[in-house]
């Protein structure tokens, strides 16, 4: 390592200005032991021209072959000379250049270093990120050069951080002190690990205290990001639980039907999204980014139709017998799972995020909010508002409320109660479909998608209180955030167990949920 560093800095000072790729360099990178190749690679990458960059890229892509002492870059099944770029015939016995893991790592960092000079700001930002975690002093000259050339202030700032990180392990005490001071201005989690690891090795007392002071500042900056991050992922989980539970709030909360197949109705929604995605890929590739907009109504309709069929076919005959309903709908859920397995196979299917949903907003150094989560939170709010409006303002909502409050009277008023039941159940099922559509964007889509959420969803409804939309909302959000906070503290599985135990204890105290129905309707 030391030798390499020495050689590299030596080359940097000797070679001024980019020098052209030579045949010797190419051979050095393509032949021999990994150590020697890495050395040649770093030598060439320290001060590269376009051809060098292209050759390193080709090496990383496994597109280089050798025959005898000749080196070929393979592109579209044709061979090219890496130095001149002229087309060459590749002999049949040409062998691939094999890169082991160490070589691959070297290639990746070298490529990242090269990308530092890209014209595209995004490529540069990515390159800085790669370099920030895996650099030593050998990269310093390159980074300083990039720092000088960088024009975007945010990236310049990040480069400075990378530089400080590298300098932190410098043998010069003054440099280390300087680096420690610079790092205190960072709110990047990597700075924290770097500071901690350096603190463990540092022997000089003065530098040590500077490091500690810097670490404290970084940690307090990070603490905010961590807390906000936990709140955000809690809200995100809560929004998913809310979507899942909203459908149940109608079928169980209003109608009193225990629908164990609710999870499978979600699964149908997710698979409907998958099918729509496939159709767009095949027939409308130009509009692929917008397939999700078409998938939302399709998922709703698919699940709603299935729900209506279930209500007419099975559940209708079991009103007033909740335990039997539970068993029958469990049977339905088993059949639906097997049905999906027969049609789509037992493996998970891939549902892609559209381009506009990938990526995220970087709010703090250690807190970025992914767009797909943000979209789902917005979607959950939209579904909630839509449903609240539907139940409280429309004629159908009025009928549903009327029938659930007093069936005989509603019937006397001329409401077709049987039809209202079907509509209400289809509505709840459709919302399950919407939840499935949303889930397909953040999780796996497979035959047992629904199973993972059904216990949670029932917990939300039970906790929120039956027949209460507001209760469902608070319960979903509360459970989501509680779960995520406990997760940071105890780990995912124990958090889940703790939440279940807390719910069981809570139900002891308030068997009717947070928002208990009062008065006569409580006994119904």
């Amino acid at each position: 390592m030391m030798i390499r560093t020495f050689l590299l800095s030596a080359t940097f000072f000797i070679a001024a200005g980019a020098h052209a790729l030579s045949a010797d360099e190419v051979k050095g990178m393509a032949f021999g032991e990994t150590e020697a190749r890495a050395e040649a690679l770093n030598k060439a990458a320290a001060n590269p021209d376009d051809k060098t960059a292209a050759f390193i890229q080709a090496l990383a892509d496994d597109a280089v072959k050798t025959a005898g002492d000749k080196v070929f870059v393979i592109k579209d099944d044709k061979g090219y000379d890496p130095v001149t770029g002229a087309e060459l015939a590749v002999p049949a016995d040409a062998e691939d250049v094999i890169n082991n893991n160490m070589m691959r790592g070297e290639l990746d960092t070298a490529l990242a270093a090269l990308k530092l000079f890209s014209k595209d700001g995004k490529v540069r930002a990515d390159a800085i990120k790669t370099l920030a975690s895996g650099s030593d002093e050998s990269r310093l000259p390159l980074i300083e050069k990039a720092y000088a050339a960088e024009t975007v202030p945010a990236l310049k700032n990040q480069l400075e951080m990378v530089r400080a990180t590298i300098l932190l392990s410098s043998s010069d005490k003054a440099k280390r002190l300087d680096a420690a001071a610079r790092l205190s201005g960072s709110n990047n989690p990597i700075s924290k690990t770097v500071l901690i690891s350096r603190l463990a090795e540092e022997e000089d007392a003065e530098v040590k205290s500077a490091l500690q002071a810097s670490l404290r500042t970084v940690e307090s900056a990070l603490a905010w990001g961590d807390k906000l991050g936990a709140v955000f992922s809690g809200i995100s989980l809560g929004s998913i639980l809310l979507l899942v539970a909203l459908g149940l709030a109608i079928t169980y909360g209003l109608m009193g039907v225990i629908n164990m197949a609710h999870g499978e109705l979600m699964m149908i929604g997710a698979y409907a999204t998958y099918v729509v995605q496939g159709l767009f890929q095949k027939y409308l590739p130009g509009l692929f980014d917008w397939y999700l907009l078409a998938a939302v109504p399709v998922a709703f309709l698919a699940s709603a139709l299935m729900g209506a069929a279930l209500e007419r076919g099975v559940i209708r005959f079991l009103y007033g017998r909740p335990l039997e309903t539970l068993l029958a709908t469990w049977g339905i859920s088993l059949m639906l799972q097997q049905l999906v397995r027969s049609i789509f196979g037992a493996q998970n299917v891939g549902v892609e995020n559209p381009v506009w949903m990938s990526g995220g907003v970087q709010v703090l150094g250690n807190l970025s909010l992914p767009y797909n989560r943000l979209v789902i939170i917005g979607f959950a709010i939209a579904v909630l508002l839509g449903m609240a409006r539907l139940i409280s303002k429309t004629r159908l909502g009025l009928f549903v409320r009327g029938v659930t409050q007093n069936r005989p009277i509603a019937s006397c008023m001329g409401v077709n109660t049987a039809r209202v039941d079907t509509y209400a159940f289809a509505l709840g099922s459709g919302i399950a479909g919407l939840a499935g559509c949303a889930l397909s964007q953040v999780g796996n889509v497979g035959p047992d998608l629904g199973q993972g959420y059904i216990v949670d969803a029932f917990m939300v409804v039970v906790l929120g209180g039956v027949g209460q939309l507001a209760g469902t909302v608070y319960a979903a959000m509360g459970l989501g955030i509680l779960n995520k906070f406990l997760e940071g503290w105890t780990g995912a599985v124990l958090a889940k167990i703790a939440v279940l135990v807390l719910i069981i204890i809570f139900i002891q105290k308030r068997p009717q949920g947070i928002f208990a129905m009062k008065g006569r309707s409580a006994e119904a």
Partner: protein
Amino acid sequence: MNTPPSSVILPVKGPLLTRVGLGAFIVALLLVCALAPMLNLLVPESSMFHMSTYAVALLGKIMCYAIVALAMDLIWGYTGILSLGHGLFFALGGYAMGMYLMRQIGRDGNYKSDLPDFMVFLDWKELPWHWTFSDSFAATLFLIVLVPGLVAFVFGYFAFRSRIKGVYFSIITQAMTFAAMLLFFRNETGFGGNNGFTDFKRILDTPIATPTMRMGLFVITGLTLLGFFLFAKWLVRSKFGRVLQAIRDAETRVMFSGYNPIGYKLTIWTLSAVMCGIAGALYVPQVGIINPSEMSPANSIEMAIWAAVGGRATLIGPILGAFIVNGAKSWLTVAYPEYWLYFLGMLFIAVTLFLPNGVVGLVKKLRKGGEK
């Protein structure tokens, strides 16, 4: 809320078993204790009357399930409380037995250590505290009863005290077994994590895989099942049993008549859990493995369907149901694996829609129709 699944029978004290019942019982006793061992151990393998090891294992397993179905029936069929968490009690009994069997492996494991293999694998140096009594068979027998009973008692005490009933109770029990499953999946819990316990070698210092030992376990399971059947029969005919059925049919009325249902419910709930635990303990040495998937909510719901298929609130029904469903399962999952879930799903729907009293109810109905 609950309609009585069977017609009301006025309390007339008769013998525990009718003459036909007694005959059938003695036949069953003979089948289990004499015929099965004879066909399996004495009749040569070439003979068509030979009972294969596979059949012994399968029937032994199903008899364990039948005990569970009987326990389900006491709590659901006779008391009207649907538990979706009985898989937990079954698994707890199984784990208690499994711990003993793991200790019986001794130094014959892959790592030649005194500790069970998975602990060596996790680099543990000594047994965790809850394994203290696992090398004593007597203590294990005690734990098989105590652990499921205690868990059920504590859970039931809090649930019944706050008057959780009906579907709420079912969902909470499901959450309970789900939480326990997640807990047992963890390696830190000290129950072997995902893999659970397996590779048993001995029980009571005698090899476990011999035909005689298999047959012994089979006979013990059969006797336990028959014993529990008689016990349940006596129980549901007693005053205690009558109160249970009254709670099922009209709990509020029972309370107004001066009974406190909590004690009754808690007793039958705990009893049912203990029966499940014993079934689990008999199940593990015969099947040779116990892992946390036994606690999955799906397993517990399946237990309910055994009782429902056979006929709730009859005692022979659940036993029949366990045999029918599990017989079909072991045939279908081999012959047509992709259709098993369709069949099971259809069974759930068909039984709830068309056969509220199960197979026994159907037979009774047909017989009544025939008499007319």
